[in-house]
């Protein structure tokens, strides 16, 4: 089967993630997530059984429910021919255990599937962790597109710009109201 790296195909695949991956009884969540990761790695990589690092990671895995849900979505996403490549093991590992938990602090797991921009952000974050480029895209273009979608970057910019913006609106509003109301604006002015 052809290793597709076409954006719409990847988005399509992710959006088709069955709801079973999200909806798991909470007391089983951790166990099922671990099992899915192990399954995925077994499918993708030949000598997974001997990987002590991964076993250690799995045994230490302890994150929030939202992160378990996101990781399960990721196991669905990576389960396609494109990622059948031993060279990608480090990238996928770092996405599952580092990058995705970080992103999950700001994004609800179901949003990765429901919101078009978040779906694309997920796909691009995963590809970037794996150093894989979409067909016909340069590294700069990929980076630019990811930057534009990045939740973390967006929040950082908003946190810097929201307060001044709100203050500006409040001042303008106060000015408008005072102009419309009597104001003491003329007191003592010729």
């Amino acid at each position, binding site marked *: 089967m052809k290793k597709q790296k076409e954006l719409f195909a990847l988005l399509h695949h992710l959006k088709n993630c069955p709801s079973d991956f999200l909806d798991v009884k909470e007391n089983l969540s951790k166990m099922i997530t671990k099992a899915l990761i192990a399954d995925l790695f077994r499918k993708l990589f030949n000598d997974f059984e001997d990987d002590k690092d991964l076993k250690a990671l799995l045994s230490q895995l302890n994150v929030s429910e939202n992160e378990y849900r996101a990781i399960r979505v990721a196991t669905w996403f990576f389960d396609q021919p494109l990622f059948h490549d031993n060279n990608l093991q480090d990238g996928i590992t770092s996405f599952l255990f580092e990058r995705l938990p970080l992103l999950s602090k700001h994004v609800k797991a179901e949003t990765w599937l429901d919101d078009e*921009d978040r779906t694309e952000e997920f796909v691009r974050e995963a590809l970037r962790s794996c150093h894989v480029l979409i067909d016909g895209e340069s590294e700069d*273009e990929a980076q630019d597109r990811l930057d*534009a979608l990045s939740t973390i970057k967006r929040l950082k910019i908003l946190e810097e710009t929201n307060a001044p913006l709100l203050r500006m609106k409040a001042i303008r509003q106060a*000015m408008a109201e005072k102009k*419309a109301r009597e104001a003491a604006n003329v007191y003592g002015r010729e």
Partner: protein
Amino acid sequence: MDGKINVSTETLRSQWREAWISARSVWSAFLMLREPVWCLTSEAARKEGLTGSFAMIRLTDHRIVIDLEKVKNYGVGDEAVQVLAHEIGHHIYTPANLRDNAVLLGRIRWSLADMEDKAAFVANIYEDLIINDILHRSKDLDMAIVYQKINKDVPFSPLWTLIMRTYEFLWKLKRGSLATDLLLHNDKIDVDASLMASLVRSYAKRWIDGGGRFAALMYPYLVEEEAFKKGMASMAVYLDTEKAGEGGGMISGLVELDLEGIEGAIDPRTEATGDKQPKNKKTIDISASFGKTDRGGTGPKQRYLQPGVYIDLLKQVNPNVDEQALINQYYREIASPHLIRFPVEVTKSTGIMIPEGTDVWESGDAIEEIDWLESAIASPHIVPGYSTRKRLYGEDTDSDQSMKPLDVYIGIDCSGSMSNPRVSFSWPVLAATVIGLSALRAGAKVMGCLSGEPGSFMETKGFVTKEVDLLTILTSYLGTGYSYGIPRLNTPFHAPLKKKSHVVIVTDDDIFHMLNAKEANHWAIAETALQHAGGTGTMVLHSRPDWNKPGVKLLRDMGWHIHYVTDESSMLDFAREFSKKNYHKRR
């Protein structure tokens, strides 16, 4: 030369006529919409009211106007289906009708503090995004190419970059494929564009509800006048709904506060950061009140818009509307729940309002005013605004005076201490409207007088029977002097009236200064006026019973009733009581 241009635009016209059929079927094969007005020259388009752009819609007559000369100049002759489908979208999707158009503008205005005049511009951009996204993604029309072609002639601005970036986000296009001026790109615009794109997707079906949020996103791109003007210049060729409501007549039911609109005046930027609050505590306090302070409800139960806000909104919907008609409508709508009911003995009794035939019911009128029977008689097919009829009422001219209720004279203090009823809601004006309209309904005549003296006054030409004459006086403003001018009573009451009249004067404590003034014997005027009027006389005093006791006693001895109000809203209670007592079920 002219001939040459005409030939090619004529060819365009026949191509676009064919495209019209395909464009309609994009939305629905069964769509009934009149063929566009095809203008072969920009001169002809101007006569149709189309100036900046090459296309526009008119909600008033459900038409689309196309300037084929401009179509040719912008090189979009081949994009007929996209352009026409877009214009159809405005007619059947957003804004679709005068009322939704007005409600959307109202929602947008909540988010545009001090820039409400830019609401129509913002609405047009929003509606375009909604329609184009539907056409591009659900109807498989290549809308991007239209922008690519026209943008060649469009001066870019931060605002336009934001809109074009939003389309790039919506349609997953590479950076710069529509937002071609890369020098204008920055992180802030990217963030705003991405928020705007998800807003457009989320609110595509309930677009009215997204108006406030959309306007909040646009806000920083509109504040600086120079930047805004550049944005206007970019958008000029695309503006196709700005004048959609022009000439649309009065739209009723917009006086009441749109609570959902106020709640929707939220900035998606703050929503996106969730509960995390910016560090500066003071900023938070202010933001919490943004969009709500002082612009909240007014009048009875604080349910209504401020009159100034109402006038601005309706004038934006339809710049041709008469301001006086609006302010009359404003107080009429607020007064209407408090009026006496229409007399029921319509056919037999005298001196009451009777049906006087019918007139066209237009889409802006209250739905309950439709006379379905008359409408059905007029035409078997009900087409709103065409075959719908409403009933008109007029006064029965039978002049058996002994059967008629007393007339009423309403004098209002309109001195410097009163606020302008066009700018802020006025209880005295509402009270006068309730009494006046109730009296008219009951078949009485009404004389209204505003007085702020020394200085000026305005009054109706004697006792009148038309609502509009009365309301036009009551809702005016003087703001001069310090009180109601007692000499005004001489005008109607200089001699005994043949037909008796009640006298109601709404004023405050300063009236005693007026009564005591040296120029003339105002006490005597007050006394004879009441005798000549022949009905009851009431001074509604915004004052306290323990003030000016001697003056009050003098007035009472003359036969005046003194009704104290300490808080203005109780004037409405007085007006209701008065109307009920004097005008309800009178025969």
